[in-house]
């Protein structure tokens, strides 16, 4: 995947503006423990207001709920709060993204952008770009090269607006002991020492975007599904938070928002995708999407771009000239827990 491919509309993305030096062990997130910012889903939905405007809003909601025409609402509310509550109302009753028409998709994206603008005065760039034809994404991981720096994790957290306060991370880097093989039981995925450590090797796991994903089957409301380009996505607004998918995933690929996620305002990545890194709310699942907001416009996921060792390769499995195809054809690749029949699109290999 060439990242200077201009076939698609180009976004004003400044590449890795503030690459942090620390290793994603949470130090750089300490600033967010003082709950000063309005973060995560609150940035969209939780409108700060006094009692009076709260009353107006409730009344507006009730009137609309009772089917009163929207013009009649103007007697009790200003234009902005009217618009906000109208957006909330429509957002609550919107359908499953997977089943929306293109027009409905554009409408909900517009509502989310507008809602944020009303709140913050800043414009988000939320994409609803569909999968391209003849694209099937896959990932390869070179175990020989990984040194356990965790730059991928830091980049992932920044790119995907993950909750800073609980230090949610999609990627886990497992530190394994030399001579014991792939012994996950004795590995450590939470280390805080200098790497590469003597006598250890490193291996990363994340969502493997299975071709036969057990998590998708079990979801009672089809809030998660596999896109045409092979990415397993979640509609955050449709998820009911039952966590059945989490129990069904054999790879620990899914994360749950146990509380309202917090992302400091200035750290919010504003280039978003509806199915990707847009701000989440409490009580819903999320996971790696191969950075759908990047990969669908021909870029590498943040982890692959951030890796200083070159152990991460991302690409189109259907493109015979892609790097990933070369790896699959020339290296002795393997996948994890193949006996489960999940067919992950995430391969490991060694030099």
């Amino acid at each position, binding site marked *: 995947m060439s990242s200077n491919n201009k076939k698609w509309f180009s976004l004003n993305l400044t590449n890795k503006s503030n690459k942090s030096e620390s290793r994603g062990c949470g130090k750089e997130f300490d600033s967010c423990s003082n709950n000063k910012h309005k973060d995560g889903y609150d940035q969209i939905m939780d409108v700060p207001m006094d009692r009076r405007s709260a009353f107006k809003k409730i009344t507006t909601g009730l009137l609309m709920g009772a089917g009163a025409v929207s013009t009649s609402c103007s007697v009790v509310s200003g234009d902005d709060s009217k618009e906000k509550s109208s957006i909330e109302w429509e957002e609550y009753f919107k359908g499953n993204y997977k089943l929306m028409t293109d027009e409905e998709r554009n409408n909900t994206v517009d509502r989310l952008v507008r809602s944020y603008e009303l709140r913050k005065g800043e414009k988000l760039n939320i994409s609803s770009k569909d999968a391209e034809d003849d694209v099937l994404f896959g990932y390869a991981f070179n175990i020989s090269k990984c040194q356990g720096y965790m730059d991928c994790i830091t980049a992932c957290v920044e790119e995907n607006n993950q909750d800073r306060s609980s230090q949610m991370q999609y990627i886990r880097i497992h530190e394994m002991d030399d001579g014991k093989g792939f012994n996950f039981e004795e590995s450590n995925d939470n280390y805080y020492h200098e790497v590469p450590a003597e006598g250890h090797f490193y291996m990363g796991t994340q969502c493997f975007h299975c071709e036969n994903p057990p998590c998708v089957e079990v979801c009672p409301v089809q809030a998660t599904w596999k896109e045409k380009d092979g990415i397993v996505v979640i509609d955050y607004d449709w998820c009911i938070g039952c966590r059945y998918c989490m129990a069904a995933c*054999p790879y620990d690929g899914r994360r*749950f928002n146990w509380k309202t996620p917090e992302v400091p305002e200035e750290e919010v990545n504003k280039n978003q995708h509806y199915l990707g890194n847009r701000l989440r709310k409490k009580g*819903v699942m999320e996971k790696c999407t191969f950075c759908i907001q990047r990969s669908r416009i021909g870029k590498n996921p943040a982890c692959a771009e951030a890796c200083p060792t070159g152990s991460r390769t991302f690409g189109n499995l259907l493109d015979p000239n892609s790097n990933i195809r070369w790896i699959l054809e020339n290296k002795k690749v393997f996948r994890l827990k193949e006996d489960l029949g999940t067919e992950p699109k995430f391969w490991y290999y060694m030099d």
Partner: protein
Amino acid sequence: MKTLKVFGSLVIASFREVTQGSRAYNIWMAFLTFVMLFGMFNYGVQLDEGLSVTGMTDRVSWGLYISNFTFLVGVAAAAVMLVLPAYVLKNIDFKQAVLIGEGLAVAALLMCLAFVIADMGGPARLWHMIPVIGVFNFPNSMLTWDVLVLNGYLFINITIPMYILVKRYQGKVPNPKIYIPGVFLSVFWAVGIHMITAFLYQGLQARPFWNNALLGPRFLASAFAAGPALIIIVLAIIRKFTAFKVPNNTIQKISLIVTVAAQINLIMLISELFKEFYAPTHHSISAVYLFFGLKGKTALLPWIWTSISMNVVATIILTFHKLRNNRKILYVVCAMLFVAIWIEKGFGLIVPGFIPGPWGKIAEYSPSFVEVSVTLGIWAMGAFVFTILAKTGIAIELGKIVYHKKED
């Protein structure tokens, strides 16, 4: 129209019936109300803060709520399956077993639904699951099957006792030709809710501890022991506090069912233990954690060994006719069995499924204060509902509240 009128007057009469009673009854209901309110307050905290106020984490993502849900499905199923053997064994007052059993099933089902809702991250978005309005992932997701069978079962178990009670209320004899087919349907349905709830876990290749063909049958056996054990205790209480006659014979026959089920349950436990520990594989590791602990993490040990010892002792006592037929011993043993199976089918089943995690991480789980409070609140709700149902039902059966024809 006339039926509606009768029903309306029944509702009024039963409301009058359940709002007055002895001092003990009033204290009991006040206590339950208090626990419910306390649970509701804590649920409010959970709604506000999110599920982070529970002990659950990304590593152990289901806990006390889903454990209780799983156990109560068993109670709901067994309460009615008791009816079938009771019918086969004849000489038991059939209607009685139907009424109490189905009342218990209704209460247990309401608790099941409450536990599932308490476990949801977004209860406000539950409408997404309503067929037609939302998206119902049927037949792929076992959870949708479970929703269907649980609600269907709830419907059956409300309509049958309702029919019987409305008839009795008018002083008529319920027609067995109408309610017996319903009873049989509910018996088969009970097997269904149990197997499907087991399939919920059994179908996950990610969790070897659950992915086990014995899970469903073992659910049935343990439920058949725990449910009727609860019924025996309930019947004993009803016998003590009301004029409702429960013949010794009934309790004796039910205790026989409990015995056989408890024995089968033990045999299956032995089979499971043999498989896990005779030739331990990588997949036995959750069982090792449950029974012996892993790397110094031993949170479940006291629970599971309490459960197993109570289970074994209770089963042995039940096996001897002399001991079983002693009413006092029987009640104690039934209580023991109930608690033992609550542990075993509750967090003894759910929590080890997540430990160790997919990459071998051992993160233990213990419920938080909020979680325990909400759980107690839901149990109080179940007891409250059952008390109301039982009190009305018994009053009608005893002829205490009768329909008086007025103008027509």
